């Protein structure tokens, strides 16, 4: 993470020998800096420490116990070994891996729509608003509407029949795999707007004259899109990836809760839903804490990778 400041700091001691008066004035400023800095930062620091750091440390401790919310006995690291040996755990992670497939799909849709919007055809701002609106819909509402849309006589099946793909018609939420596909499709619907907005923002930062230069050099639209736009959007791709991937791991709980309840069988139980079930449905808070730590480690990995990649070209 970048911590260096973009601007030189006010009152920061420059080093070297200074007249005594300046030195004294500097000491007063130094005290003001420390006092004011501490005062201004204190509320944020308190919130982060008391409401985030303390509970995550607790979660780490309890993850090695058989905590039930009231009492706990120390089990030690073998608690993790037991969990990793459980096929259910891997089944749940598999669902997460499948859901991750939706991430590049969402990003591709986003880039495509952004490229179209960036042509600024007649009414493009209306289209941009229309594309963003689905992002504002809560996962609960998406779940409630999704049940209707993916039902045997629902909208999706009617649509498939209309475009000649009637062979795909099925009770989407009735079998594990197709239910996961339905969840993934709803995920794409929800996140395509924010992805489009990220790429539109990125494209608007590109200087249009370089396209003119490329055109003069004989590049066609496809060549300048692949050769100029895509590489120049690198940072935006990374950002979109992190936003979308983190959502896939940690934002879909309410959708699963309302649309599928994690089923059929374990078909749509992802790790975040599994955490809720372990802790609040079956009362094994220790198991929930363990799964929470696993989720934390996964997201930590994703974010660190992004930072690595971002700093490499910064």
């Amino acid at each position, binding site marked *: 993470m970048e911590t260096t400041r973009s601007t030189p700091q006010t009152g920061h001691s420059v080093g070297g020998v200074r007249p005594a008066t300046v030195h004294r004035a500097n000491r007063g400023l130094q005290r003001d800096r420390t006092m004011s800095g501490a*005062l201004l930062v204190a509320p944020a620091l308190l919130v982060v420490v008391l409401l985030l750091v303390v509970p995550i440390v607790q979660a780490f401790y309890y993850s090695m116990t058989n905590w039930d919310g009231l009492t706990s006995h120390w089990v030690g690291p073998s608690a993790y070994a037991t969990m990793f040996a459980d096929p259910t755990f891997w089944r749940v992670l598999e669902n997460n891996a499948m859901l991750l497939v939706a991430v590049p799909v969402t990003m591709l849709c986003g880039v495509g729509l952004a490229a179209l919007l960036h042509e600024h055809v007649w009414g493009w701002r209306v289209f941009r608003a229309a594309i963003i609106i689905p992002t504002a819909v*809560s996962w609960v509402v998406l779940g409630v509407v999704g049940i209707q849309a993916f039902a045997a006589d629902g909208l999706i099946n009617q649509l498939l029949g209309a475009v000649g793909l009637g062979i795909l018609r099925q009770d989407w939420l009735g079998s594990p795999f197709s239910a996961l596909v339905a969840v993934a499709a709803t995920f794409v619907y929800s996140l395509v707007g924010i992805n489009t907005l990220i790429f539109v923002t990125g494209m608007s930062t590109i200087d249009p004259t370089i396209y003119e230069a490329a055109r003069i050099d004989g590049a066609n639209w496809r060549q300048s899109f692949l050769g100029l736009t895509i590489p120049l959007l690198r940072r935006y791709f990374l950002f979109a990836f992190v936003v979308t991937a983190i959502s896939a791991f940690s934002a879909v709980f309410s959708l699963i809760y309302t649309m599928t309840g994690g089923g059929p069988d374990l078909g749509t139980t992802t790790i975040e839903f599994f955490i809720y079930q372990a802790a609040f449905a079956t009362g094994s808070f220790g198991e929930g804490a363990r799964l929470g730590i696993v989720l934390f480690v996964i997201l930590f990995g994703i974010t660190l990778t992004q930072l690595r990649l971002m700093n490499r070209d910064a």
Partner: protein
Amino acid sequence: MDETLTTRAEDTRRIELGTLRRRTRHPVTTGRLAIFVTLAVVSAALLYPFYFMIETSFRSNQQYLLGSGFSLRSWTALFQGVPVAQEMVNSLGLCAGTILAVLVIAAPAGFALAKIRFRGDVFVFLGIMGSMMIPLQSFIIPEYVNFAGLHLINTYVGAVLVYVAVGTPFSTFLMTTFFRGIPDELIDAGLCDGLGYLGVFRRIALPLSGPALATLIVLRFIPVWNDFLVGLLFLQEPGVRPFTVGLGVLASSQLVSVPALMAGSLLSTIPAAIVYVVFQRYLVAGLTLGSSQ
């Protein structure tokens, strides 16, 4: 040719500023027509669920099953079955409380981290940024048990504290990035006038940070308004429930008809959709700051 080029450059600049007013004139070509049609079709598809919600909500259950006829019966059923007004007020109150708290916490912290060099500032910055990576599901179980011990379950304070915990790291990051853009000369001038850092923050930096605060408000409103998990756990009693939780519970109870659920869904979606469309500009600003760390 030259002219279209400059207008395009200008457009881009204005889009960034969000002030584009004049429509650029492009010749209508087959390519542009195809783009228009594609965008129209995609938009229609993406908005179809809204059409479905609206149409269905104005039917009674029987009319819905038959597929013809309209009535207000489902809307009255929704308002009879759920304390809609109470839950809406709950949701709004939670949003207002969270936004206010986050503003009061993140703005000063952002200023200090951007403009004051104090002992340990790097550690504070790294700590707050690092806590951005802690997902809600990882800390919510101990938080829930802690809050239960403090009798904060089913209180607004408890839920707001969780929302604030989730929102503080990114909001502080956003404010830090914003305040870094304020020239040091302004800060120095204030210091020379004897304002001290607290005075500089209150009289100089804060009045300049309107757009950043607006971005923060928009970015905080949506997740709290649309939240389900925090409300489900920390506000379980019907009287304190936010609207999304009421809707989710209603959906899983299967006590009401599909049209009534659609009416509720629509009601829950409208405020968030309006905020998104009207304040799009601030959303873009937030994204720009987020992707340019």
